[in-house]
């Protein structure tokens, strides 16, 4: 019995990974683009879930960190001719350092204060980016080089796919490691956790730092794919999308954000044909999910699965 479960746990993801190799062979440029964007959101939603779903800290600075990664990498490329490959690593590092700093500042604070601080940080960053337009070109947009000399959507797809898979593997490893267990202890009962000797502060800061680094890298990838970096990337609008994807997919579950990211991104392409209603619709769905089914789509499916007696 145990053997069956273990092999299933490895086979199913392996199957998905193998299937994921094929899209560039039959998808049009347009839909390949949608896949790439979905993978970006997978990276963002799962790394946000790491702190929100697993440690209960609702940070509104996630999109801001992706903006940090994008702008650092972009400006290095434009001003110093740095290769984007190196640029995104530097961007992710800067994001991690800022995440560490912000995490350090927020330690004493409760949920509301943390959310407001991250909100304030996010808006400060956006205003600075918008105003320092000699460096960032603000709302006019910063044009940056791509990763590949010859533009090829398929190449970008594989790049995003590989990084997304690495992120997911890393997140999975963290959740199931000792650190991860302490995350969940902190989430469930902070008082009990700290009295049993878990350094809740260190736990929170580490989670925050790792999550910010991921957001930074995702942002760098995104920026160099679009070849245009704008203050939209570190905006609250983007933050909302990431949050909605995690919530609707299922916060606190591993697969939830992945489902949410792909689901919402593909859905938004369909809805867009009818007009710009997709944000409103996602918002309403997110409200309904948060109110009635906080475990998200994944939670709902899991419940149905159990009811149907498949296990």
């Amino acid at each position, binding site marked *: 019995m145990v053997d069956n479960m273990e092999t299933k746990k490895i086979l199913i993801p392996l199957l998905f990974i193998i299937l994921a190799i094929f899209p560039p062979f039959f998808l049009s440029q347009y839909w390949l683009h949608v896949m790439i964007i979905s993978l970006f959101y997978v990276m963002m939603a799962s790394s946000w879930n790491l702190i929100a779903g697993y440690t209960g800290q609702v940070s509104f600075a996630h999109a801001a960190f992706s903006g940090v990664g994008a702008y650092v990498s972009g400006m290095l490329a434009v001003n110093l001719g740095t290769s984007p490959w190196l640029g995104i690593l530097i961007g992710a590092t800067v994001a991690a350092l800022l995440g560490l700093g912000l995490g350090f500042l927020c330690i004493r604070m409760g949920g509301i*204060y943390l959310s407001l601080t991250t909100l304030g940080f996010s808006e400060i960053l956006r205003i600075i980016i918008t105003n320092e337009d000699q460096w960032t070109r603000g709302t006019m947009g910063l044009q940056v080089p791509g990763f590949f000399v010859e533009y090829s959507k398929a190449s970008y797809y594989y790049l995003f796919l590989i990084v997304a898979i690495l992120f997911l593997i890393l997140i999975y490893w963290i959740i199931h490691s000792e650190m991860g267990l302490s995350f969940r202890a902190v989430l469930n009962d902070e008082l009990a956790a700290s009295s049993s000797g878990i350094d809740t502060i260190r736990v929170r800061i580490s989670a925050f730092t790792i999550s910010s680094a991921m957001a930074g890298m995702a942002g760098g990838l995104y920026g160099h794919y679009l070849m245009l970096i704008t203050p939209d990337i570190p905006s609250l609008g983007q933050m909302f999308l990431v949050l909605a994807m995690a919530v609707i997919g299922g916060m606190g579950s591993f697969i939830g954000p992945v489902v949410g990211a792909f689901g919402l991104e593909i859905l938004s392409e369909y809805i867009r044909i009818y007009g710009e209603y997709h944000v*409103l619709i996602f918002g309403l769905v997110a409200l309904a999910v948060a109110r009635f089914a906080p475990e998200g789509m994944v939670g709902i499916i899991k419940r149905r699965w159990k009811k149907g007696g498949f296990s």
Partner: protein
Amino acid sequence: MSEFLMYLTNGVVMGVINAISAIGVSLIVGIMKVVNFAHGELYIFAGYFSYHLSVSLGLSPLLAMPLSVFFIFLLGILMERTLIRPTYGDEMYSLIITFVLSIVLQNAALLIFGPYPNKPPNLLSGATNIFGLFHYGNQRLLSFGLSICILLSIFYLIKKTWFGKSVRAISQDRGMASLVGVNHLKINMVSFGLGAALAGTAGVLIAPIFPVTPTGSSAISLTAFVVVVLGGMGSLKGCVIGGLVLGILENMGAAYISTMYRHIFGFIILILVLVFRPWGLFGQKA
């Protein structure tokens, strides 16, 4: 010198209006420990209602303004009953819900009211010469006057009436308050409605000066949060002082340092306060 006075006056006027807006947030935070992210949207909805009641339906602004505030009060109560109450106690979910709600309302505003700024008619037009030193818009002066009246009414409400006393009791110790017979569920509901109504009041007071747009709501929410944090969560005095400080600082900063960064002063204050003195100027040390 007259420029300086103009900036100062602008700062004070905006400050008082900021204060009213912030009290709406502070009330809700103080009582329910919930941050109402949808604050800015309630504000603009009030502005839109005021506009449509006056312009599309032809009602006098004197009627349109209070009526709009009343609608927002009802909207607030509805929000509390359907969305906020069930998440009571779970901080994370109430944050998520009001944040998502704010985005939903923002987009709804875009859909229902359109993308163009709507400006309810001025009650007064033209400008007055202040002490012969500079000109200042009359509508702004009127809004200033009304704001002062409203602030005084709120102080009276909180300090002298039974409702106010219940509110203060609950924010200090909910358990004890319900023991002495305060119906905290009802108070929650009415307070949320009142908080919403205050957002709406600020909205109808400002909309004739700064037309409302669907995207303007975030800036309004954020300004209110800064004032509340600066003044101290749950402190009315703090909202007024905080509002004035922010208003004056933003205007002075924009005038003498950089017009482009006017909003950043607020955020820097927010972060500094949260880091060094999270309970604000007049708040209680939790």
